């Protein structure tokens, strides 16, 4: 075996379509330690196509850890074993020759499988649409420096806003709860004066949409935080819990 190469046994979830039955299938592939995990799957797919088989479908796009497209559970960990890293930035040097690797899709009722490792995450868009924005029309904004925001608040808002919407939090949670996603968006806007105006409505609407999508409840195990490739803190969830209670109980209807 040449320098840096490794022989791997992969167990990958294969499922032809949304309603087709799926199963784990085993493949062998030779990878190089400098490859990203997705490049390793590319190699496998090229081999499969050449053999006349269907390649493994998986979502990916930017391959630099920011678009949030890639999503696969690798050995029980969303995006694999390295903390703060998306699957596309996970490099094969994390593994060693002879390793067995399990590759599975995000598992959640709210994320139905489309094919193989590809799932439908539009539930996240609907949560944002329910209230995850500031209602301001183009052209109606005051001068940017009229809103003063302390550096620490801006930084904290950024920490939450760093969410890439990949869904690893849902995949990691044994309840398939999307609380970290929902709360990160909420907390990002909550930390900014621009977001305060609609805070109550936002808290209520986003939680209701989260529930309506069929995600589970948060049971404070914090697996989401550990799996989050952007390492977003569950402090956001406490913030949403508090705001939601305040908003829901003081609501006039």
């Amino acid at each position, binding site marked *: 075996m040449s320098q840096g190469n490794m022989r791997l046994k992969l167990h990958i979830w294969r499922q032809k379509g949304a309603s087709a039955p799926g199963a784990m299938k085993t493949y062998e592939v030779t990878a190089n330690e400098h490859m990203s995990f997705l490049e390793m799957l590319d190699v496998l797919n090229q081999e499969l196509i050449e053999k006349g088989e269907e390649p493994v479908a998986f979502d990916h796009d930017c391959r630099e850890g920011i678009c949030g497209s890639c999503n696969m559970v690798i050995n*029980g960990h969303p995006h694999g074993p390295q903390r703060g890293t998306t699957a596309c930035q996970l490099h094969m040097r994390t593994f060693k020759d002879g390793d067995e690797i*399990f590759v599975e899709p995000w*598992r*959640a009722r709210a994320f139905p499988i489309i094919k193989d490792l590809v799932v439908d995450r539009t539930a996240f868009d609907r949560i944002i649409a329910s209230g995850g924005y500031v209602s301001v029309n183009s052209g109606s904004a005051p001068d940017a420096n009229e809103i003063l925001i302390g550096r620490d608040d801006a930084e904290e808002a950024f920490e939450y806003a760093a969410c890439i919407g990949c869904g690893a939090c849902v995949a990691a949670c044994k309840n398939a709860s999307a*609380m970290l996603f929902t709360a990160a968006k909420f907390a990002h806007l909550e930390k900014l004066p621009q977001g305060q105006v609609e805070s109550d409505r936002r808290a209520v609407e986003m939680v209701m949409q989260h529930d309506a999508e*069929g995600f589970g409840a948060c049971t*404070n195990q914090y697996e989401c935080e550990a799996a989050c490739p952007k390492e977003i803190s569950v402090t956001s969830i*406490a913030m949403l819990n508090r705001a939601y209670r305040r908003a*829901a109980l003081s609501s006039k209807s």
Partner: protein
Amino acid sequence: MQSLLRFLGSTVGAKFLMALTGVLLALFVVGHLSGNFLLYKGQDAMNDYAEMLQGLGPALWIVRLGLLAVFATHIYYGIRLKRRNAAARPVNYAHEDTIQASFASRSMILTGLVVLAFVAMHLAHFTLGWLDAEAYDLKQTVQRDGQPFERHDVFGMVVAGFHNDVFVILYAFAMVVLGLHLSHGLHSLFQTLGFRHPAYTPWIERIGRGLAWVLAVGFLSIPLAVRFGFIAAAGGGDAG
């Protein structure tokens, strides 16, 4: 009203209720244990306390019903959330792993149900006397206004009860499970109620876990103390 119903129907609202009832139940557990510690003081102290509680009359029933309601709410919402959560993840991973979730946090429903079963057994055992009628019927005779007066001998009942190894083992097991349940619940409820702070939360977690095990060990000490003779019927008289 509508907003309250909507609140309780949501995952966050249900969790809030779990935390709130959890606080009340934890307070009850603390009260219960401090009562239990009277066993170490002796037969009279324990039985005085029991008699005082009995003497509360309707007030006792109000507290009992309140406690029952809190219990029922905690259980009802616990099961409801569990069902919802299970439905949210219909297919499990072929290769499961966790990073930082504690065992306690992952087994709340299980530990909760064990505690529920234990409570049922405990009520049947010491409150209703169905499991050990002989011990339950023990009486203590005390002098009151110069007259002999017979009262329920709670102390004797407990001592007699824990001479049975089966009960000691069951109680000991249940208390470990309760400790697990509380070791997640006692700090997790702060998160649910919306309190989290980078400086305080680590302490809340430590204290919550510590308190849970202090409570569990406290409860556990009683059957063990009885079993190993640290608590024994005074003078061996009518309790025997």
